[in-house]
């Protein structure tokens, strides 16, 4: 059977989809299946499948020759290619490079724009505050305003001790 898109190569990907009382069959060669991607007019579940196909190839290309292995859980690039899933949270560091391109094609952006756990949110605020206080302190010392410097030093001490509580758990 020939691919129903290019009508040249042998179709190796056969998909059937039923919507309402209508059945649709699509026979694609591997190349067309890949290029069709998400915009496949014939469907939805098909789209996921095709997205998955593209993803593993992308990973392979991006990974180059060296097989990476996660130091935390022992997951390898070959494992990812097989499963399409990662081994542990640490894997995102290990496979950061090959994942980058994949995330770009998969998502709206590559930077998280949503919810942040409360404890980290507080920490982030504390960090900003500490940085600011440190700057002020440096300036005070520079200007030999030691009275002010002492106040700032105490404030930094206080802020630091507050900051360790939420992260210590």
């Amino acid at each position: 059977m020939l691919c129903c898109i290019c009508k040249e190569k042998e179709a190796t990907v056969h998909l059937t989809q039923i919507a309402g009382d209508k059945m649709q069959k699509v026979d694609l060669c591997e190349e067309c299946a890949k290029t069709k991607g998400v915009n496949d007019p014939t469907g939805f579940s098909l789209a996921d499948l095709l997205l998955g196909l593209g993803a593993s190839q992308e990973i392979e290309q991006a990974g180059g020759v060296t097989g990476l292995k996660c130091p935390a859980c022992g997951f390898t690039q070959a494992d990812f290619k097989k499963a399409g899933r990662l081994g542990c949270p640490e894997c995102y560091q290990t496979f950061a490079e090959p994942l980058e391109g994949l995330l770009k094609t998969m998502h709206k952006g590559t930077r998280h724009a949503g919810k942040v756990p409360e404890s980290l949110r507080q920490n982030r605020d504390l960090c900003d505050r500490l940085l600011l206080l440190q700057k002020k302190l440096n300036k005070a010392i520079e200007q030999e305003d030691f009275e002010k410097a002492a106040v700032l030093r105490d404030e930094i001490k206080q802020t630091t001790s507050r900051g360790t509580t939420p992260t210590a758990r």
Partner: protein
Amino acid sequence: MELHVFLIPPAESARRKGPHDRIVMSSRVRLARNLKDAAFPGWAKKPERVRVLEMIRPTIEALPEMKGAFSGTMDGLSSLDKQILVERHLISREHAAKSAGSGLVLNREETLCFMINEEDHLRMQALRPGLQLRQAWATIDQADSTLEKTLNYAFSPELGYLTACPTNLGTGIRVSAMLHLPGLVLAEQINPIIQSVNKLGLAVRGLYGEGTEALGNVFQVSNQMTLGESEGAIVERLEKVLAQLIEHEENARGTLLEKKPKMVYNHIGRAYGILANAHSISSKETMNLLSLMRLGVDLGSFPGVDRSLVDELFMLTQPAHLQKQHSEKLSAEERDLLRADMVRERLRPVSRPVVPPAASPGAGLDKPAK
């Protein structure tokens, strides 16, 4: 408590009402979360999965909103119970296949459901009847904020919540609604609609999620992308698209009634005829015909009949629910006979469909405010 005692009776469950439930059957928001310093369930060895389960399960049970909840391990549930949970859309088919090291916590109202060690350590979802995405998100957001005080989530400031599959990375959110779209299917407009929804970066799937067919003209619409967009923005995007889908479905119904009323009432009449008289019927045929009957109820063909009757049958005629009503193990053929018996019996008080007096074509259409 045994699960089947715990679950809400289908009759009661089908009577739950929500905004726009004529077309939007239910709304759902799911979050994926994982613990720091533990391998994802698909890669973790059993002792590690058990450790994670034992850490997460008590934390969920302690949530105030989970008071009186059902809590169990997947190896403690029979395959029939698991199948029933799938048919009620409370757990995924993937989770039903899990055994030791995975668990489930479900609240009384069946509006909050936590799957432990599915694809991720924790998959939590809020469910609502009708179109209530915002409410569902608020509910699950609150539960998540309480859990994060105790559970040490795997989170990166750049990549957000770290998930087993990169497709869920970031917010880990899946916002979805289950839509009944018989008008668009009958008007043969469903394919271009699905196509344009896909172009907006949303997925359209069948009744049981990923890779399933659209039985009974029921479609699931959900977001695909989870990174680079906030939860609120995703919910809002879904809401906009759903409002349009509702309008398209209502327009398709209106146009069909105006241009091809015979075709519509022919479908409804035949559906009723078969359902009310068959002696053997498969679950697939039942669902497709019940969908047409549901349309008939919406269009006023069955005066005095509530949509909940159809929705209840939708649930009761599925294989596991049917099996649960009988003590002996049924074969598929036996199920088809008993299913037909039950549907015939339940439709006995329902009179043959009528063609409602030619109301103005737009009458009774449920159009969302824009």
